[in-house]
């Protein structure tokens, strides 16, 4: 039996009516093990204007590099208090902010190891299907050997790496730029 996947359609301008109940900007509850980090940024359209009717969804492993999912068969401990999912709406000015813990490295393909990262889906009015991207961490030696980052033209890799915010410990900035200068890298998996 072979079917074709149902077509995607836009979330439209009223997405939050159906989706806000699951908004989660604190991905790691107190007590979850790991290095705390806050990530903030803006979702910007082709004119550099903030997208006020959008949201991002985040999926990540725990501090050990283990996903709370049966497909992850690594012998690493799960943290029962940690699902690893976030859904963060943008503000009227396109801003978003969430807190979590830095995930551990997870396996790549063919025995490689991936650098710590979050996978991100981006949704908004004006988009007929969501976009997939990733957030990596600054000053992370493993980035240089990450098999997915390696597929990205070097000049554009920086769009996937969050930046430190001067004077604010454990706060990072990461923006989603839809078009033009500094356009974020999106993936086709």
């Amino acid at each position, binding site marked *: 039996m072979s*079917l*074709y*996947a*149902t*077509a*995607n*359609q*836009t*979330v439209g*301008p*009223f*997405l*939050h*009516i*159906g*989706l806000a*109940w*699951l908004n989660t900007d604190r991905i790691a509850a107190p007590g979850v093990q790991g290095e705390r980090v806050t990530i903030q940024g803006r979702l910007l*359209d*082709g*004119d550099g*204007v903030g*997208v006020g009717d959008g949201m991002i969804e985040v*999926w990540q492993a725990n501090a050990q590099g283990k*996903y*709370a*999912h049966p*497909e*992850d*068969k690594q012998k690493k401990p799960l943290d029962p208090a940690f*699902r*690893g*999912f976030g859904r963060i709406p943008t503000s009227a000015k396109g801003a978003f902010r969430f807190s979590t813990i830095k995930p551990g490295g*997870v*396996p*790549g*393909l*063919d*025995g*490689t*190891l*991936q650098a710590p990262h979050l*996978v991100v889906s981006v*949704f908004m009015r*004006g*988009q*007929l*299907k*969501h*976009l*997939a991207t990733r957030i990596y961490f600054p000053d992370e030696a493993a980035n240089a050997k990450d098999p997915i980052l390696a*597929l990205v033209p070097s000049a554009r890799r920086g769009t996937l790496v969050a930046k430190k915010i001067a004077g604010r410990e454990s706060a990072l900035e990461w923006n989603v730029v*839809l*078009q033009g200068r500094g*356009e974020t*890298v*999106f*993936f*086709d*998996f």
Partner: protein
Amino acid sequence: MSKLRGYRRPHPGTQPDYDYPPYASTAKRHPTQPLVIAPQTLSELTGPIFGHDDLKPGDHDLTRQHKGEPIGERIIVSGRVLDENGKAAAHTLIEIWQANAAGRYPHRTDQHDAPLDPNFSGAGRALTDAEGRYRFVTIRPGEYPWRNHHNAWRPAHIHFSLFGPAFMTRLVTQMYFPGDPLLEYDPMYNCIADEKARKRLISTFDWETTVPEHALGYRFDIVLRGEEATPMEKNGK
């Protein structure tokens, strides 16, 4: 780690493009650089899992969320969620949202001059059962104008959001109603090049789920991306 299977890429024409000029808002919101084609790793082959603890009883019934009953034609929307291999997507979360019977959303940016219904919020949630079946009770949403082009009206629709088993299977779509005269003029509906794929967004009237003296039934089956037939690559330890 043993071998991981990846999800199939979409069949040509069955999914929309990011840049679609008839839907004016895509102009400033689509990537201009090509997407980077990448293999699916453990990060994409896993995803959040939700369960009954995440829901409240009655979340699937949009007609019973307030003191009174909403105005409009009561309907039952049900179907099955499968993957491309025909396998049921069991215990997966479905979120829906929609306009009220007059074509109005209870949202600050909806300026359409149609009445709000104090007995209708327009949001529901359900988990599929072990066979991938789901069922919502709601009212038939109204059509409403939007400003995409002159005299633009959206056909009646219900927004659907599904997770499936992995980051790869995330799907947001819209369900339409059979015989809607607005469909042929709707950029959202027409953004899908393949006619059969487009028509699969239209629910079918369903005697089987129609409840006598109570509500008409509409059936809407949903297909999520399915795994490749053979394992694609070995995975690291």
